């Protein structure tokens, strides 16, 4: 198992996943930079991805569709915000309409990928996923992300615990 750590902060809409590979950074970078390799891991086996456009430059796009067992073809795109081969890639990941334009019914999420060699031919990769629509993000910043959102996680748990208590009493 190469996934070494997963940290989730439900209230901050963030998930950080760390993985270690037995390969140099350049090899790990190719998983993202080579569309033929990207196709082989992005979609699940029954929903293979086909990359129709792949431009990993700032402002560039990756456009893809997946093909399901029923022939259905959900489409998606990335928009590249930052790139520094073979170390860093930041992109917004969203669902696309049939013509490839962003489907605004579904919010984008942002992924920050960091790739770093840690010695003895091993490379560590972290992927930070952040979900937020512009509206939700503004709202969060306005109220102070740190404090307000950490509370939210604890409070969801508290509310659920309270409910269990009430059921036990009744």
């Amino acid at each position, binding site marked *: 198992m*190469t996934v070494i750590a997963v940290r989730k902060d439900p*209230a901050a809409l963030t998930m950080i996943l760390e993985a270690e590979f037995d390969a140099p950074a350049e090899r790990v970078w190719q998983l993202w930079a080579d569309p033929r*390799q990207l196709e082989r891991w992005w979609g699940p086996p029954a929903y293979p991805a086909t990359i129709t456009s792949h431009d990993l430059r700032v402002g560039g796009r990756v456009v893809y569709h997946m093909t399901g067992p*029923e022939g259905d073809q959900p489409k998606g795109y990335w928009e590249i915000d930052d790139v520094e081969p073979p170390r860093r890639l930041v992109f917004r990941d969203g669902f696309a309409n049939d013509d490839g334009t962003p489907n605004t019914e579904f919010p984008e999420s942002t992924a920050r990928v960091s790739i770093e060699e840690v010695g003895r031919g091993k490379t560590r990769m972290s992927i930070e996923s952040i979900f937020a629509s512009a509206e*939700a993000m503004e709202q969060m910043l306005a*109220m102070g992300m740190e404090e307000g959102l950490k*509370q939210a996680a604890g409070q969801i748990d508290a509310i659920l615990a309270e409910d269990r208590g009430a059921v036990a009493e009744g």
Partner: protein
Amino acid sequence: MLYNRIVVSVQTVFDHDRIFGALADTTRRDIVRRAIDGREGVAQLAEHYPMSFAAVQKHVAILERAGLVTKERIGRRKVVHTNLEGLRMARRLLDQYEELWCERINRMTQLISETKETHQ
């Protein structure tokens, strides 16, 4: 089954955003807690907060759209009731997303080991 998984992951991003957006406010989280027993209407809820009835009504509407509360009619009154299933879902969403990425990492590992074999 795999078809369902994709649908779930699409749905996940959508619901996730709405639910957490709705919960990213102190007043709204407090409304969610108060409305668990579903006894108060919007007007009664509004009495707990130093803000206008309209402001509280707006908060309730945001929670309602996120599926976190529902309005129920009891006789001539309308009460606000917390939807606990919506709240539990918020806790499950990140787990599903984690699984999606862990599977991708496994496929990456597989791909790297395959290319090694062909080079050797």
